[in-house]
């Protein structure tokens, strides 16, 4: 699928991209910017699709990357997921969206609230209604938000139930060395909101200990000045789902890691192969249970297969990507989850130590 703005560029520029794609071992390895003799291809990789933008002149690459991500975000927002088939199915909406989002290479309207007023998101009910009544899904009136100083919120929002939900999501990233001591750990947190309030509400959100946030980024609706002076989040929210702020607590502060992993892994090619024994346990959880634990181990290339036994959850091993995934589920303190068994190795390969990386969510 292609769309041109400034001038028509032949599809063949993509060949450069495909060349790089062929060379790269994994889709993640493709450089985001590819320079060709006359054009520059800037690509992002999201949900196993590539979105490639072609530019001819100097432009900040992050500008384009960020825009492409925004486009994908919008698609996800519209179609609830963004896959190849869905884009093919809704190509007209996609085209209309792109037309609204970019004008002559400059972003026009990227706030989903505004776009949704210009172009109504598809849903089954509306599709049926449209076919019956012959109405279109393009609105005929101009969204007023575009004209106001609150470009992210549309007017005339009405709800019978006024609700506001806040989700706090925190991710802890840590690198832990073999002996179990933390090399570095950092927290990345987000506050996601789902706000369904009538009119033009003005909210403020205060924190018990705002000093913890030393590095934050906000949705444009948040007033910077108020945050700087009082550490209060004051904002007029957009309608619906959005990410209010994200924060990062750096490696300087101490981060409590909720789980520990005890592992013994040895790979020898004598006999049947190596042995693996991993035990998970909770650590500093303040009484909460830990759920949805998933453990991933990228195995070295020489591993052929794994014959493992778990006392909880189930594991899968993908012989192509050599990825061992163990879905543990909830950690029970009385019976610690454990996985053990043998690993069969291709003979003749030098063993490489595996990097068990653990994803807990």
């Amino acid at each position, binding site marked *: 699928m292609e769309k041109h703005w400034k001038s028509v560029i032949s599809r063949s520029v993509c060949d450069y991209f495909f060349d790089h794609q062929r060379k790269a071992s994994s889709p993640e390895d493709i450089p985001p*910017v590819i320079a060709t003799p006359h054009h520059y291809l800037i690509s992002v990789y999201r949900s196993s699709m590539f979105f490639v933008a072609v530019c001819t002149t100097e432009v900040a690459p992050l500008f384009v990357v960020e825009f492409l991500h925004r486009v994908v975000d919008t698609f996800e927002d519209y179609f609830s997921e963004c896959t190849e088939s869905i884009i093919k199915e809704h190509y007209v909406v996609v085209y209309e969206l792109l037309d609204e989002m970019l004008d002559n290479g400059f972003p026009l309207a990227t706030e989903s609230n505004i776009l949704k007023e210009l172009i109504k998101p598809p849903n089954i009910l509306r599709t049926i209604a449209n076919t019956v009544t012959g109405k*279109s899904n393009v609105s005929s009136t101009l969204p007023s938000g575009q004209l106001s100083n609150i470009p992210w919120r549309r007017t005339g929002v009405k709800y019978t139930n*006024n609700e506001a939900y806040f989700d706090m999501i925190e991710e802890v990233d840590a690198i832990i060395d073999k002996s179990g001591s933390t090399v570095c750990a950092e927290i990345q947190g987000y506050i996601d909101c789902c706000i369904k309030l009538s009119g033009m509400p003005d909210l403020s*959100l205060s924190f018990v200990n705002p000093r913890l946030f030393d590095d934050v980024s906000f949705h444009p609706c948040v007033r910077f*000045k108020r945050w700087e002076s009082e550490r209060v989040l004051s904002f007029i929210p957009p309608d619906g789902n959005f990410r209010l702020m994200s924060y990062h607590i750096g490696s300087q502060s101490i981060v409590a890691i909720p789980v520990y992993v005890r592992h013994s892994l040895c790979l020898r090619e004598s006999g049947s192969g190596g042995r693996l024994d991993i035990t998970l346990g909770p650590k500093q959880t303040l009484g909460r249970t830990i759920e949805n634990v998933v453990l991933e181990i990228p195995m070295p290339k020489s591993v052929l297969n794994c014959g493992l036994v778990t006392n909880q959850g189930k594991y899968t091993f993908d012989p192509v990507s050599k990825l061992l995934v163990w879905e543990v589920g909830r950690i029970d303190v009385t019976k610690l989850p454990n996985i053990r068994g043998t690993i069969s190795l291709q003979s003749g390969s*030098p063993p490489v130590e595996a990097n068990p990386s*653990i994803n807990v969510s």
Partner: protein
Amino acid sequence: MLDSNKDNLKLEAMKRIIGMVAKGREASDLFPAVVKNVVSKNIEVKKLVYVYLVRYAEEQQDLALLSISTFQRALKDPNQLIRASALRVLSSIRVTMIVPIVMLAIKDAAADMSPYVRKTAAHAIPKLYSLDQDQKEELIQVLEKLLYDKTTLVVGSAVMAFEEVCPERIDLIHKNFRKLCSLLVDVDEWGQVVIINMLTRYARSQFTDPNLQDVDEDEESKRPFYEDENEVDEEQQEKRAPTLDPDHRLLLRSAKPLLQSRNAAVVLSVAQLYHHTAPRSEVHQVAKAMIRLLRSHREVQDIVLTSIAATATRRKVMFEPFLKSFFVRSSDATHIKLLKLEILTSLATESSVGIILRELQTYVAAHDPPFVAAAIQAIGRCASNIKEVTDTCLNGLVSLLSNKDQAVVAESVVVIKKLLQTQPSAHREIIIQMAKLVDSVTVPQARASILWLLGEYSERVPKIAPDVLRKMAKTFTSEEDIVKLQVMTLAVKLCLTNPKQTKLLCQYVLQLAKYDQNYDLRDRARFLRHIIFPADAESGGPTRLSKQAKKIFLAPKPAPVPESHFKDREQFQLGSLSHYINTKANGYQELPPFPLEAPDPKARDVETEPQVMEQAPLFTAKKVSSKKDSKFYSDTESPEDESEEDENSSDEDDDDDEEEEDSSSDKDEEEDDNEDEESSGLEEKLPKKVVKSNAKPKSDEEEEEDESDEDDSSSESVSDSDSEDESSEPSSVPKKQTRNAKPAKESTPVVKPKSNLDLLLDLDDVSPAFTPIMTPSLGGFLTPMSTPSSQVKTQLFPDIQV
């Protein structure tokens, strides 16, 4: 179907056509049929026709003209959306014949009541410019008007148009500079990026270099006491840069909050603004925000890391506190790993090198060949940059020599060679060990390095060197070109130091090389022969050249200085495309150097108030000034607002209160403006403003607290969030606190080289099935393919003028 009367059928047909366009199939033969539908009443059909028109109008110019009158009518439509989209399509049709029509339309639209239409007009300007360059002068006039616009919506697009049409007309900015700075926070994200980039160039041309006085000071003089102070104090205590223009200060200050934008592009553009224009003591403020971006998408990470790598070579101290953020995760993509390594090595200092080396040791055990190679090179760079650890590194590298992995060994050999060069002191054991490796190592790079090393330090290993040469002479024909070159060099060097044993061997090697397929080899052989064995020439006796042969070949060579290949990127603007690809991109504008004397700052004083009011209708001006407060009023939505306010009666009081505030703040701002006009310096004004903005939110808060429940904060440790809607009852606001701990822990067991070796030794009998891959190396070394040959060339003939 397009000729049918029913909109439904038309729509269906248009959708199919658009589908064809989207797939890149040719659909231009349908043009006449489609153009007829441009008058369609159905908005969706119309939109799709527009899309089609824009795509194919260039090819069917005559037919496209048929549609123009429709657009002209639409330009007068009372609905601003239709006006805007008509202008957008009209200007997107690339047909030269309609240039005058578009010109007129742009002029009209630029004076339109609706900011949205004005924004579209700003977008249309570069389009028309690319269509017909002759219109430049007229366009600039329109653009000048648009730049005066005070609506945040318009300003971003106007600056974008300015950048495309006439970036050299910096004089247009003078009058708008202060306005742009104050509006910056409220412009949309994309506009912010463009404006900041433009203002960076502006600052470089209009303000003097803030770092001029302390150029001789060592890079990054740390001034920790500045960090904790708020800006006002900083301003007053800013004694180091007394010449910092108040406007320059204003620019930096207004850009600073944008570091907290969610848009990575905005953050990076602020970072580059600071990097290029801020006084040295303030640049470090951006580091934290840049580190935060590292948690974003892969592509963003890559670009930000590139920028950091370039910055880190010059400003080490800036990123030092964040060293651990650059530790590699096993889940990173390869090119991100490489960039992180690059940054780690350039950040290494005496104090931090220990941690870094420990990390690097772990990386060597990873199973990602290019990454491992880069890690080894990184060790080498640390070793040569920091003298204290050189020996430790060298020992570590030597132990890697017995690694089973060919690629690891090869890379270590190359790095050791470079390290030994920097260290004139004897490392006899290492050389001997390397010499033994000649039999096993197959990577040509590594073989070449070993041979060069033997030749260079042959007097330290007098017995081994000739032996190796003998072996190499035997296998000469089957070697790679770079190895052959090194064999010759070795032969010649040995021939000079130890002619008794090796003269014949040398002759033999040169003879072989004379008939090699590679002309470079043949050239070299002939050349060497004439220097070493002048007897072949007619003159008979030793020529002057051959007398000097020893001096030529065994002259002490300067050691290579490994440095970051990000060093040469300084010339490009940080974060630009040219910077990323490290070549000049099409349309790149150089950052001008700071002028020695600042141009007249008076140029930025605003005295054109009445003109602005003429173009921007009253309500826009009001809006701009009220935007700092919470509420806003715009023309179209006020009726709706009122109806809602009736419903939520509690809101109304609030609104009224704030309205009063608005008006008062309006006055305040007008006063500010007056002050602005009168006094060219802003220093007096700025602190006041800060105080005001402090006072205002407080009153806001009081109101809110009256109405809403106290924000009860729960006992949870980190932070909890409650929200109250002013209008709704507290009970109807469900509190949902989902606390998802999502720690992604990656444990990368540190395997010390020795334990790894033990593992490897168990498998000694198995021949490695792993094919070594040499990849372009990181870390400031020359790329592998060219390294030895080019180095040898330059090193062989240090005084070629003989």
